[in-house]
């Protein structure tokens, strides 16, 4: 762009002051929240003419946690956040930015993040991320860059979903897949690199393979003629086999790139924490990655099911709590889902 000739030159008397740039970042604390109510496969099988064995074989899922009707996305996010703040050893006042990754907060506006901030007594900048099952890893990347760039000292990243509100319990393809829950992480400054470069991207040509079956605007029509037709509800639908192909053969190379960009190999890992989509995706991805047998693989899905944005931080919190992965160890995490969108990075576990 050429500037118009005004005959004026810059004063040059002032320079913008910014915080020191290019420091390192790391995850300083994590927390997780699972709703009390556990729903085993046996409670779902009648409506989809299925069996516990069939569901286990196809997904590895035995049960999922389901929120109470009056338990909101923000309620669950708050519970996970309080744990993460405790683990990080900081107070909510020290948060400079709050990112909530969710696709099930039932308000298009306002976002969940400002409400969460208010619950915590914080007035930090706050916004939501709509990146489905990749939302947490997107958030970690953005938070890391905020900390490294100096625009924030501490950033809260929450992945939270109440998928039970958007599940069609008569759909054999998805009825047993989803669960509810929240996972949170605090990202802060570090003396050493704690979050590797993120490999991320999207493929909007495959928008239909995981999508709400209707846009919200379709719900306006029946208002004049009240109906209980469940087909009108914008539940989340999924073309399972297409998602499987993309997740395994498309995402394993992305995970490998995240290792390469971080300058480590699979042998260096203390944990592999992929999005908990389906045990068969997890197993096939580990096989494609040629993951060494001694690297623990997150399998939180077994009793938590697929909690979309919450799955990676929930699995991280569980692996740390159970001693399955060590504090200070290296974890490869990858999120992928509706969009389609994905993000992967190597992190040091808090």
């Amino acid at each position: 762009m050429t500037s118009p000739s005004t005959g004026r030159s810059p004063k040059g008397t002032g320079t913008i002051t910014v915080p020191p740039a290019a420091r390192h970042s790391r995850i300083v604390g994590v927390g997780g929240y699972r709703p009390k109510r556990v729903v085993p496969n046996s409670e779902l099988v009648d409506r989809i003419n299925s069996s516990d064995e069939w569901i286990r074989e196809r997904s590895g899922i035995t049960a999922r946690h389901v929120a109470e009707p009056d338990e909101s996305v923000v309620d669950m996010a708050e519970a996970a956040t309080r744990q993460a703040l405790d683990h990080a050893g900081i107070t909510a006042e020290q948060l400079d930015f709050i990112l909530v990754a969710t696709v099930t907060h039932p308000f298009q506006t306002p976002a969940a993040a400002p409400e969460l901030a208010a619950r915590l007594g914080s007035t930090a900048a706050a916004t939501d991320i709509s990146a489905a099952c990749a939302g947490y890893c997107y958030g970690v990347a953005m938070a890391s860059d905020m900390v490294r760039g100096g625009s924030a000292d501490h950033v809260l990243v929450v992945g939270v979903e109440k998928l039970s509100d958007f599940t069609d319990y008569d759909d054999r393809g998805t009825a047993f897949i989803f669960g509810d829950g929240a996972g949170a992480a605090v990202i802060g400054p570090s003396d050493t690199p704690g979050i590797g470069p993120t490999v991320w991207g999207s493929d909007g040509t495959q928008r239909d393979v995981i999508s709400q079956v209707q846009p919200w605007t379709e719900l306006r029509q029946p208002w004049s003629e009240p109906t209980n037709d469940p087909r009108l509800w914008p539940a989340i639908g999924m073309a399972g086999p297409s998602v499987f192909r993309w997740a395994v053969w498309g995402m394993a190379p992305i995970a490998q790139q995240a290792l390469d960009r971080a300058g480590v190999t699979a042998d260096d890992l203390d944990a592999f924490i992929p999005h908990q989509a389906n045990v068969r995706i997890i197993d096939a991805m580990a096989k494609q990655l040629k993951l060494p047998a001694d690297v623990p693989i997150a399998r939180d899905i077994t009793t938590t099911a697929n909690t979309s944005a919450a799955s990676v931080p929930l699995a991280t919190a569980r692996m740390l709590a159970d001693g399955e992965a060590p504090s200070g160890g290296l974890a490869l995490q990858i999120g992928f889902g509706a969009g389609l969108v994905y993000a992967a990075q190597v992190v040091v576990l808090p």
Partner: protein
Amino acid sequence: MAQSEQEILAGLAEIVNEETGLDTASVEMDKSFTEDLDIDSLSMMTIVVNAEEKFGVRIPDDEVKNLKTVRDAVTFIANAQS
């Protein structure tokens, strides 16, 4: 290079065996993947991706649902190779 249907069948049987543990001899032309061989949709996708690599063809997602029998798959691969 285009292969004969028998060569494709033999190669496909190896892929099915690797994914499911089924004996290669049980992978016959008229068998249905789902009903006779009890192969579910995710295993079918694994077989499809491995077949793409082995036979050097592209099998789009939309096409997979049309591959009901072993013969459907063998014919599709043979046509795609030629």
